[in-house]
């Protein structure tokens, strides 16, 4: 490798780090403003115009705070754990393309690498809980291990379904396969000399595989520990779980990793299901950001709406609902590929599965609530005076 190539790579990585930090700042600001609006507040207003400098102020505060080490903590593990969480979440971005050319290193097995790196952060969280020698931390770490491992399975299975659909794990090819044939060929002809074979689909995958989108988004929420799946740092129960003993910059590192992972999930949803950076009129990068941030807003919306699940409910939902469903997803995509059926057949199968699941969920969760409400002469979702 020549010196210039190494320099080039270093520059890429540095700019990646800078851009991701900026993205995290924007995410924090959007979350606080958006949640504020959901809750009829203004959100931050005092720091700069529209409170834009609030994340910066938070960051400065965190860095200036004292870094505490509990006296019983396992020092090495305690200090290494934040890095074990942060580094994989940065490494994921090496292979996520934002546009056709805007990627540090596109890999043919990109999706595989991303999933592998996502799993690594479990280790960091578990070690953080263990190393801080705190019972809340230990409980949180064990909860995290249980939750993340169980929700990793549906996530991987959705990725497998997509690999079956597109016959590739290269994110650029997955995005290209969702475009009209002529566009896809011209793009791949320029970018990819090796002329890889792939299955051309021609529409955004969400249209033919909505089951995958639902599963991926839910599993992704659980992966990044967002409400209603935030049981491993549940503030009202185990007071922050693995992060309970961390303060200052090390806590900020966990925070950073959490937001980057949220962004990863949103970006993957955009790339895998919403045709990535492609769209009319606007430049590709803008389309990528629009799609990703829209997914992020959905995640924040869910956060503002739902209470937290209990651990047994969470595990039951994962093992009895998500995992069988993700296998159904693999089966229907395989059937679709093997018999080379038309696109609408997969949409139909996918929607049928979703409808069955929707009915089951209605039967299991919503109908008891409606019954409960009716026993008090109410309709859920309506105010009492409107009965």
């Amino acid at each position, binding site marked *: 490798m020549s010196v210039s190539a190494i320099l080039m790579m270093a520059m890429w990585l540095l700019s990646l780090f800078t851009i991701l930090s900026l993205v995290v700042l924007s995410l924090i600001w959007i979350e606080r403003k958006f949640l504020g609006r959901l809750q009829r507040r203004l959100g931050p207003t005092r720091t700069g115009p529209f409170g834009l400098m609030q994340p910066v102020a938070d960051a400065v505060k965190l860095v200036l705070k004292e870094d505490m080490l509990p006296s019983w903590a396992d020092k090495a593990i305690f200090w290494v754990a934040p890095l074990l969480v942060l580094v994989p979440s940065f490494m994921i971005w090496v292979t996520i393309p934002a546009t056709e050319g805007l990627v540090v290193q596109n890999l043919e097995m990109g999706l595989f690498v991303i999933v592998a790196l996502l799993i690594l952060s479990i280790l960091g969280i578990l070690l953080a809980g263990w190393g801080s020698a705190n019972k809340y931390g230990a409980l949180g770490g064990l909860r995290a291990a249980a939750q993340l491992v169980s929700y990793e399975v549906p996530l991987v299975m959705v990725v497998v379904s997509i690999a079956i659909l597109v016959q590739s794990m290269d994110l650029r090819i997955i995005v290209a396969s969702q475009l009209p044939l002529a566009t896809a060929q011209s793009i791949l002809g320029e970018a990819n000399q090796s002329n890889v074979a792939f299955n051309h689909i021609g529409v955004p995958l969400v249209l033919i595989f909505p089951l995958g989108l639902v599963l991926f988004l839910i599993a992704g929420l659980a992966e990044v520990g967002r409400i209603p799946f935030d049981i491993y740092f549940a503030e009202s129960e185990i007071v922050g779980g693995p992060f309970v003993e961390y303060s200052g910059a090390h806590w900020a590192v966990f925070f950073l990793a959490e937001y980057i992972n949220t962004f990863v999930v949103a970006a993957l949803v955009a790339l895998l299901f919403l045709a990535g950076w492609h769209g009319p009129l606007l430049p590709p990068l803008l389309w990528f950001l629009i799609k990703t941030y829209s997914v992020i807003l959905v995640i924040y919306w869910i956060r*503002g709406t*739902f*209470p*937290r699940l*209990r651990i*047994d409910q969470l595990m039951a939902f994962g093992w009895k609902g998500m995992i069988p469903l993700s296998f159904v997803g693999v089966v229907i995509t395989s059937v679709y590929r093997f018999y080379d059926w038309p696109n609408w057949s997969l949409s139909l199968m996918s929607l049928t599965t979703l409808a069955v699941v929707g009915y089951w969920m209605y039967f299991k969760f919503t109908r*008891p609530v409606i019954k409960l409400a009716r026993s*008090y002469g109410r309709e859920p979702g309506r*105010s009492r005076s409107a009965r």
Partner: protein
Amino acid sequence: MTNHMDQMDIEHTQSVDMMLNMGPQHPSTHGVFRMLLRIDGEVVVDAEPHIGYLHRGSEKLCEGEQYHQVVTLFDRLDYISNFNNEWVFCRAVEKLMGVEVPQRAEYIRVILAELNRIASHLLFLGTFGLDAGAMTPVMFAFRARERIQGFFEAVSGARMMHNYFHIGGVKEDVPHNFNDLLSSLLLDLRKDVEECDRLLSFNEVFVARTKGVGEIDLETALDYGWTGPSLRACGLEYDVRKAEPYSIYNLFEFEVPVARDGDCWDRYYVRVLEMYESLSIIEQAFSGIPDGPVMALGRRLIRPPKGDVYVRAENPRGEIGVYLVSDGTDKPYRVKVRPPSFCSLSALRHLVRDTYIADAVVILGSLDIVLGEVDR
């Protein structure tokens, strides 16, 4: 060197329960409550509540203060519903002295106490949502509660710790724009309460988290001395305002909401329904408020005759009782308070056994304790 695993005697290996200390600095112990949980994994095997972190010796302090000063100490018992507490002590002294409180003062007291009940239940709704992990209800509930607090400030001069009810009436008449303030408050408040109700009550995840959790049957609840909304959630229609009407409560029409199962959701929902009933009481009282004096005794030193009296009232958390002994001087000889939170808290150990840690938090939240009144 042999492997460590080989040497382990699996048959004689036993797991040890973990002791988890929750509180007094824990976000969901609602003040300075502490419980020691013995947990087996995620399951709570046993719980040992520790109280007393907020003990200020209120009952003893009462013996050193003149009667009108004791009212301020009662403000600080259940600091979420100050008016209700002031009222019960004033009623005790009034009963001992045989004072007839002017009608206007009674109406003002009812309006303020019922508003305070709504404020207290709104606080419960918000924090209970937080305990279950929902972060939006607390914002909605606090917004509504702020309106009420603003109204209290306009009337009594303080947002909390009002010291507004005096023995024989209220400190002074309401401000001149009382009618405008109250009518606009009532309009907003009904909307706000409905909003909070719609937001949380029938949310699927919320119901899944609270329905069937922390169930208690009526007999056990009675044995623990439960009163108020928590008891009514078990199915018994018992409300001091109906069972032994005090003040002018027999003039108003209102229902006593009850539920059936006695679980956390029922305890929550009874309180929600109570807010609607309180609104209706306030509306009735507002339309019938008479003119006239607001104070029967004037400003003079209070010396009740020798004797003792027991008075009870329906607080937002249940039945509060005050036993007052007077020796004929200007200071009470003995004041004993029977706080409702203390009784509901005593059932905690019974309730949280064999539940999950997350349930323990929800159960504690559903009891709606205020440590100021538990510890006194």
